[in-house]
């Protein structure tokens, strides 16, 4: 079983993000970290590979300025076998559709049975890239998996819904997205960290993949989030709870 995992290196979320004043793109430092939500996808991929046996492989696929590759190495140290990075100046600030086409091309070039992705990135938050990759690849997508297993040659998931979950399945080739909390991601082991140095990392350009970044969306302006308004303090003189219930109803949360 050939498993591709979509991973993304992002600026450390612990530090405030900076936007380029002209392009409005996030300024990406040399050192980027693995998007925390991707650790779940990597873990699911590793579990599927372990269940499938020795000839299974896990390949990380990422599109970003490669930088120090710190985030990719973290995912390799968890146990992935190799990584494919698409690093091309023309992709700076690529929109979701371009990103999807590029990543789909990279996955298609490698060959795959299963593609695993998180639900959305923590820096971009578009939440549409995995489904678009599936569309470009022509593969079914099983999304929002809270549980994943390989059964009788198919991938079966529990798909998280508002009311509970649906059980859905599809035969490979298939793409699935994994919710945070679906699995407990393993720590990279020290042996894994030492071995990650030797694992292959292929760097590709758009030319290698035969794709171009045309018709990109442009960010015309960026506005800061409005400052939070001060809350209202309810003085309780015996009927405070009624006021609170009324406020919650106004806010349509009950």
């Amino acid at each position: 079983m050939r498993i591709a995992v979509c991973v993304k290196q992002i600026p450390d979320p612990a530090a405030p993000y900076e936007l380029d004043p002209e392009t409005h793109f996030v300024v990406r430092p040399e050192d980027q970290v693995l998007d925390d939500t991707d650790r779940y996808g990597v873990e699911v991929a590793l579990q599927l590979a372990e269940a499938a046996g020795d000839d299974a492989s896990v390949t990380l696929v990422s599109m970003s300025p490669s930088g120090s590759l710190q985030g990719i190495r973290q995912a390799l140290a968890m146990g992935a076998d190799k990584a494919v990075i698409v690093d091309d100046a023309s992709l700076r600030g690529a929109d979701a559709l371009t990103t999807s086409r590029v990543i789909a091309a990279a996955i298609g070039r490698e060959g795959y049975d299963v593609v695993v992705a998180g639900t959305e990135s923590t820096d971009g938050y578009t939440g549409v890239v995995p489904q678009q990759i599936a569309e470009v690849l022509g593969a079914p997508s099983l999304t929002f998996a809270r549980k994943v297993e390989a059964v009788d040659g198919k991938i079966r998931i529990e798909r998280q819904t508002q009311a509970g979950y649906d059980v859905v399945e599809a035969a490979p080739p298939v793409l699935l997205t994994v919710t945070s909390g679906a699995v407990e991601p393993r720590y990279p082991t020290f042996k894994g960290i030492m071995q990650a140095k030797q694992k292959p990392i292929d760097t590709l350009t758009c030319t290698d993949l035969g794709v171009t970044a045309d018709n990109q969306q442009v960010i015309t302006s960026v506005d800061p989030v409005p400052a939070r308004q001060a809350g209202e303090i309810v003085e309780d003189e015996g009927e405070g709870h009624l006021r609170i219930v009324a406020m919650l109803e106004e806010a349509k949360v009950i």
Partner: protein
Amino acid sequence: MSKQPARARKVDARDFLGLDAKLSPEERLIRDTVRSFVADRVLPEVAEWFEAGTFPKEMAKEMGALGLLGMHLEGYGCAGTNAVSYGLACTELEAGDSSARSFVSVQGSLVMFPILTYGSDAQKQEWLPAMARGDAIGCFGLTEPDSGSDPASMRTAAKRDGDDWVLNGSKMWITNGGIADVAVVWAQTDDGIRGFIVPTTTKGFTAHDIHKKLSMRASITSELVFDDVRLPADAVLPGVRGLRGPLSCLTEARFGILFGVVGAARACYEAALDYAVTRDQFGGPIGRFQLTQRKLVDMLIGVNHGALLALHLGRMKDEGTLEPAQVSFGKLDNVRMALGVAREARSILGANGITLEYPVIRHMNNLESVYTLEGTNEIHTLVLGQAITGLNAFT
């Protein structure tokens, strides 16, 4: 996309001198992994372990799975990292609690290291892979009730009886003694001091845990008693004779300590910094007072000096140029620094500083032990005095 220059960073209160940039990607990943492990597995529970006076034995296997046990040793299931990575792991463990670092120091530096360095191939095969996994726990028997800084005065002795050895005596203040599967015991023989591998199930071996400690409470500390413990001829470590054996182990362990205590100090400094900017008195945070800022800055400088010193000595160890006296320098100064930082932090936290709700008093009490163990502050002072004058003040 072309590489962009690293983002201009403002000064970081938690990495003031930007030491992160001096670490390799692997070193940072190991450091961050241990930091996550400590945040997930040690910090949520360590105050309870400390209060109850226990260390959960199952931690051994979790630490083994991560690769912490004997991480800087090569082969036999060990990860084979460099010395700086081992040091950084110690820093993160001790930022949790000295007991976690101590567990790893004893297992890796005091038990696995001598077996790897002085043991026979059969001894290595028998013990190292199991110890690296955490399936077997080790302890190190050198100190005795009446033999501390002067280990040559030890009374524990092993006598030949046919091909066998018969071991008698006792050892004191032995970390992990009561939970160990194997002890490396140093004893007098007709051939000088020798090291013995003693499975704790051997007849005549008993361990008594030491209670009523007010320091290192999340660590098991025991007395070992050997009453005619009969050992086969191949229980002795063949590769070393004399005090050089145990002293070389202690140098290894001190290396872990000089990194480790930087973590304890950092935890105290960060707790004090967080407290100082959130605790209001006289209409504002106490961190605005000059007296508090002076304390915080002294702590900041101490922690960063200690981290710089540790990293420097770590690089020397990886280059193979580190001398034992330089390890003494690091152990002496960094533990002294850490204890000072912990006490200063306690004063910033006021009454809250004495509760287990905050990490400070736990670290402060632990550091009182670390100040004394693996060579007291006084002994390391004399080691340094001898190193620079050529004059021996011990005798």
